[in-house]
């Protein structure tokens, strides 16, 4: 990190950084395009429908057409909206979503920044998105979007606590917050077996952080019309959707790295398959889980949501930390 900052800046390496970021962005856009297509197909199949099949072969260009439609739409803005904040909110929501990807190690060598505190960086930056969501809700000058923004803030701040707590077990086992070292410590056994409690809490809390079903109350259509982005259209709406799917990518990568051994193969004998393939397979399984849940789970009531975070998830996460700490102290001969 420091070497990178202390390099003499020149047009050459600035261009190089820029190019690397653009390549990541393009890969990400490709992922989001086909994640949306896949989501519609999977949910279609689960509901005994066909799903999109008109645009392009097998409907493969459906999302491309949808995005094109979004981009050429008129960019509307409510008359009494707060002009500057209305424009700022999508940026505040999306920029952290892209920035968190910098610390994720996709393979042993493919990583943008090898931070010693990778986990904390991810969690801290993803918290900034809440600010964008509240700003969007307030600046739209619409009561539904304001309620959606408030709900979202309450939910994301509450569920961040069990999310962080559930990761502590993994950090204790590894003795490091560096994501690369966490993966390398899982050579013998993936973390989701010894850390099953932590894994369960993480999975549920991540669902709430992503605002995905069954925790999609901030955009509950039947109660709030559309949530915090109800007044947004065109490109700005696309930014919010993009942020949501990029977070899905990021959270999938986090689950893969923290609990499923990142780029490590299932068995050392299978290590002839490159690490990036393993990483992608695990990530896509998580993404599939999202769509599966969306097609099957109902939504809890808003009052059940908060008590679940504080009265169920947090105690379980604390118990997990206690058990992990006791076991580790026992193994190292401290007690």
């Amino acid at each position: 990190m420091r070497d990178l900052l202390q390099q003499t800046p020149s047009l050459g390496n600035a261009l190089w950084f820029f190019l690397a970021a653009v390549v990541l962005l393009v890969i990400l856009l490709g992922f989001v395009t086909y994640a949306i297509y896949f989501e519609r197909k999977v949910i279609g199949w689960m509901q005994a429908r066909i799903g999109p099949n008109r645009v392009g072969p097998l409907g493969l260009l459906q999302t491309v057409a949808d995005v094109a439609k979004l981009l050429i739409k008129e960019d509307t803005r409510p008359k009494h909206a707060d002009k500057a904040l209305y424009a700022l909110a999508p940026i505040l929501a999306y920029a952290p979503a892209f920035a968190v990807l910098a610390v994720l190690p996709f393979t042993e060598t493919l990583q943008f920044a090898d931070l010693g505190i990778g986990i904390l960086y991810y969690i801290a930056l993803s918290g900034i998105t809440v600010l964008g969501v509240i700003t969007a809700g307030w600046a739209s000058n619409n009561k539904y979007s304001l309620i959606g923004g408030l709900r979202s803030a309450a939910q994301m701040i509450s569920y961040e606590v069990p999310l962080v707590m559930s990761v502590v077990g993994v950090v204790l086992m590894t003795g490091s917050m560096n994501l690369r070292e966490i993966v390398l410590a899982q050579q013998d056994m993936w973390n989701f077996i010894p850390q099953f409690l932590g894994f369960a809490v993480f999975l549920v809390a991540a669902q709430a952080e992503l605002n995905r079903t069954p925790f999609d109350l901030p955009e509950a259509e039947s109660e709030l019309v559309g949530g915090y982005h109800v007044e947004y259209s065109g490109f700005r709406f696309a930014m919010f959707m993009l942020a949501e799917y990029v977070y899905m990518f990021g959270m999938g990568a986090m689950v893969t790295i923290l609990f499923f051994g990142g780029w490590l193969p299932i068995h050392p004998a299978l290590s002839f398959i490159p690490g990036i393939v393993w990483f992608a397979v695990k990530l896509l399984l998580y993404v599939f889980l999202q769509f599966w849940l969306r097609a099957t789970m109902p939504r809890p009531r808003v009052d059940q949501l908060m008590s679940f975070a504080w009265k169920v998830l947090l105690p379980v996460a604390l118990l997990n930390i206690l058990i992990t700490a006791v076991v580790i102290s026992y193994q190292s001969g401290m007690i």
Partner: protein
Amino acid sequence: MTGEFIAFFVLSLLTIGGAVFMISFTRVVHMVISLGITFISIAGLYVLLGAEFVGVAQVLVYSGAISILMLFGIMLTKHDASDEGTGNTWKNWLSLIFVAALFGLMFWGIQSSVWPAPPETAASDVSNVKQIGLDVFKRYVIPFELISVLLLVALVGAIIMAKKEGNKE
């Protein structure tokens, strides 16, 4: 001209700019957003100094704090409420003189004091979290625990005050 210098320049501009706008804006949500920019830029300055952990903790703590502050700002003020600003010009001049004097004093103090040469620490590996952890939980464990008691008392106090108000209604 190193990258560090450019980053420092941009971050300090954002820090000071956010603080200035925080004072000069008149609507509470705008103020909170510019305060947030200040806090996040300060986190960037920490990272520049090699204190990644402090920087990330700054973002972690203050982004949540800013969100809560914004919620209270929205809920406790009217939608169109705005500061009407102080009309008293002589008061403004008086405060300008005081601020200028304070700035002069601090600038003089900083310029004239002799700083000890920074100890040549071995360039630590990627992370300094471990060092912070060892220091906090071994050397400074009693102050650390006392602070946690203080926070707990503040928390309980806030709950008791809120409860009292609820009972009156």
